[in-house]
């Protein structure tokens, strides 16, 4: 992966010092909360229900074992022994004291990590394909370009106070696993007929209150011009994006308002002023960065490992795990392996410090010391020898990573929700637990097959509910939590916004609602047809009809106090520190 040079180190160290002084000024009262808020958000620090939360960056989801161990250290020293991996391929810690946050940044800096621009109205930490560099369907490795954009966007002086957050995602593969169509800017690395590398640029995608699929603004921007092109887009947005209404401030609203053709014209005009200038990327700089992403020393191996194939025949549990967690790799004899963070009884995406240490250890033993965080809130070891799969499976089982549910119903994408987040209208982690408990039969899950279930606690859509095959959104009705269900969303290739099926449901009704949706699927599907494909083929009407045909009973168990807060795994019950004095 990319390693810091002296300049990167110095800049991150200076950020730590700057933030430390800002916290000092806040604690002394020199800075008011209104002033400090924006500054802390630029470092990923939120004030949540129980405590401060901090979102640490894993740029484009990539990290090494040393960094993962630092996350474990932070979990132990400053938090309650666990962290939460997010849909933006970062990690959040939920139980922090404000006065500790500068030390956390200082600790991170020792391992070439930071929390820069993980929040706030600025260009956010860039996301990418969790299988970048190893995917079987990859055309160009997007990571060097992601790093190039990371550096360009870091402390960009003009764009620290944009109308709203600004998200960039980049992919280099045929299948879009980076959800580029629902980012403010989506970049697809492509080659033109002459073999030159460039980008297909999408703009104006986004979820939140008004979900919009991004549209193409440029079919091919040569790689040398990517910084000036993206800068031109953000400059037009900074000047003309709405600032009078928080809910209409994203670039998607601007693009919709003036139309893609007019927006493109403005961007092109801006670009004509800075294109070919000094910000044109040099071959030397691309080469320097790309040197961090060269292929590791792969062994020459046969395409398939016979011993592993034999074990799949003889051991059903292993076969189930392989089927779900082991992904194709472009190098013969290697696989990418997903470590599930969707263990029953644990919040989706949560990992304990011990699990983080274990994951680091597994990365060193089996995957050249590197890991990825997926937007589905799991971990990925990208370069595993197939011959190591049985041993890795045993180690994964021992550490709670081997739930064979990747891509299945219980691989729930889930935001922190009302258990933590001040923005939430409703709980999501607790609901995920209820769904997980209802559907605990692995054979049934395997039979249902691939399905994305996304649960967001509010319209900010941190769990991307709009693009879930089944999307669940927490809504507020007279102070009570209710859930709106949508159907037919899809995160990429192509992306679709799901349709709301009708009036909302109570917390205790949702598992039964999901069950009814699945019953319609089982009734209607063709052989081997995925849930989403059935929905696309028959539309949502048969589902709506069945779900609302008779009253949906509430699950009595879910009305007991045991479901007020998650108890198992994550000790969320007693806040030990509240900044809300």
């Amino acid at each position: 992966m990319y390693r810091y040079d002296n300049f990167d180190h110095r800049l991150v160290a200076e950020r730590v010092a700057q933030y430390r002084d800002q916290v000092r000024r806040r604690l002394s009262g020199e800075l008011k909360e209104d002033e400090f808020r924006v500054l802390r958000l630029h470092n990923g620090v939120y004030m949540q229900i129980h405590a401060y939360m901090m979102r640490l960056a894993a740029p484009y989801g990539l990290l090494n074992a040393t960094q993962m161990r630092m996350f474990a250290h932070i979990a132990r020293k400053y938090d309650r022994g666990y962290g939460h991996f997010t849909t933006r391929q970062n990690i959040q810690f939920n139980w922090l004291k404000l006065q500790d946050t500068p030390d956390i940044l200082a600790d991170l800096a020792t391992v070439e990590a930071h929390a820069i621009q993980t929040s706030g109205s600025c260009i956010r930490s860039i996301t990418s394909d969790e299988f970048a560099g190893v995917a079987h369907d990859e055309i160009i490795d997007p990571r060097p370009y992601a790093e190039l954009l990371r550096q360009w966007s870091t402390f960009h002086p003009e764009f620290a106070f944009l109308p709203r957050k600004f998200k960039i995602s980049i992919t280099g593969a045929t299948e879009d696993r980076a959800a580029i169509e629902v980012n403010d800017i989506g970049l697809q690395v492509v080659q033109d007929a002459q073999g030159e590398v460039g980008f297909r640029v999408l703009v104006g995608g986004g979820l939140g209150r008004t979900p919009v699929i991004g549209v193409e603004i440029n079919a091919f921007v040569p790689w040398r011009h990517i910084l000036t092109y993206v800068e031109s887009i953000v400059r037009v947005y900074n000047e003309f994006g709405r600032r009078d209404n928080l809910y209409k401030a994203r670039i998607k609203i601007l693009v919709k308002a003036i139309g893609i053709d007019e927006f493109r014209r403005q961007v092109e005009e801006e670009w004509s002023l800075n294109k070919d200038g000094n910000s044109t990327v040099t071959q030397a700089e691309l080469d320097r960065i790309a040197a961090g992403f060269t292929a590791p020393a792969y062994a020459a191996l046969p395409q398939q490992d016979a011993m592993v194939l034999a074990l799949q025949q003889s051991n059903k549990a292993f076969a189930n795990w392989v089927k779900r967690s082991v992904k194709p790799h472009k190098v013969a004899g290697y696989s990418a392996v997903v470590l599930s963070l969707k263990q029953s009884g644990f919040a989706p995406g949560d990992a304990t410090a011990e699990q983080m240490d274990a994951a680091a250890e597994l990365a060193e033993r089996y995957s050249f010391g590197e890991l990825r965080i997926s937007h589905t809130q799991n971990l990925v070891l990208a370069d595993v020898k197939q011959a190591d799969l049985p041993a890795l499976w045993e180690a994964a089982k021992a550490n709670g990573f081997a739930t064979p549910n990747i891509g299945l119903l219980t691989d729930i994408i889930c935001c922190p929700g009302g258990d933590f987040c001040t923005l939430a209208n409703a709980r999501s982690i607790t609901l995920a637990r209820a769904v997980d408990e209802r559907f605990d039969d692995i054979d049934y899950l395997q039979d249902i097959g691939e399905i994305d279930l996304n649960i967001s606690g509010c319209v900010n859509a941190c769990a991307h509910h709009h693009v879930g095959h089944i999307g669940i959104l927490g809504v507020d009705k007279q102070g009570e939590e209710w859930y709106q269900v949508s159907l037919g969303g899809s995160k990429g290739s192509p992306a679709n916004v799901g349709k709301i099926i009708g009036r909302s449901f109570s917390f205790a009704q949702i598992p039964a609602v999901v069950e009814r949706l699945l019953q319609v699927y089982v009734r209607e599907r063709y052989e081997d047809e995925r849930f989403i494909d059935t929905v696309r083929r028959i539309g949502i009407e048969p589902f709506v009809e069945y779900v609302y045909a008779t009253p949906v009973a509430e699950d009595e168990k879910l009305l007991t106090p045991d479901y007020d807060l998650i108890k198992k795994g994550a000790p969320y019950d007693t806040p030990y520190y509240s900044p809300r004095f």
Partner: protein
Amino acid sequence: MLIKNNEIVTDEWSVLRLHEGETADRVIVPGGKVIVPLPVWNCQYEVLQGRTELGLWLAGFERAEDIPDDVRRFPVIAVDFHKFSDGRGYTLAYRLRKQMGYQGELRAMGDILCDQLFYLKRVGFDTFTLRADKDPHAALAGFADFSLSYQASVDTDAPLFRRVTRGEIL
């Protein structure tokens, strides 16, 4: 008090702001070094165009296209940040410097914290008046928050990769 060249100096300019009941066409522009808002310049252009020691100030929401063509005639142009989290003034400054050829004094005023000084300086501001409740002496440290930058802007026309040899690790 004005921050200029990393020092606190006396501000020779006064800033004309319209108070309630005053209108851009009727307000009396005092003599001496005065910075007038854009609507006053537009309304009283015939009278004001003869004055050499006249500055112009722009609200953050005013756009480059609203600005008079001949910006170079103003010895000072100020951008007023009504709240520090509104970043339009940064792009406005960038356009004045990079695209409109403005080389005079470019002043940031209004709701400014020391935490923005580094960014403001980079996009071309060279003088600063902080909010009255902020200590300008203490704020000077803000210029030194960072000793380098990755991107090109107004302060440096080249990104870091063209300025230095990258890749060295101590």
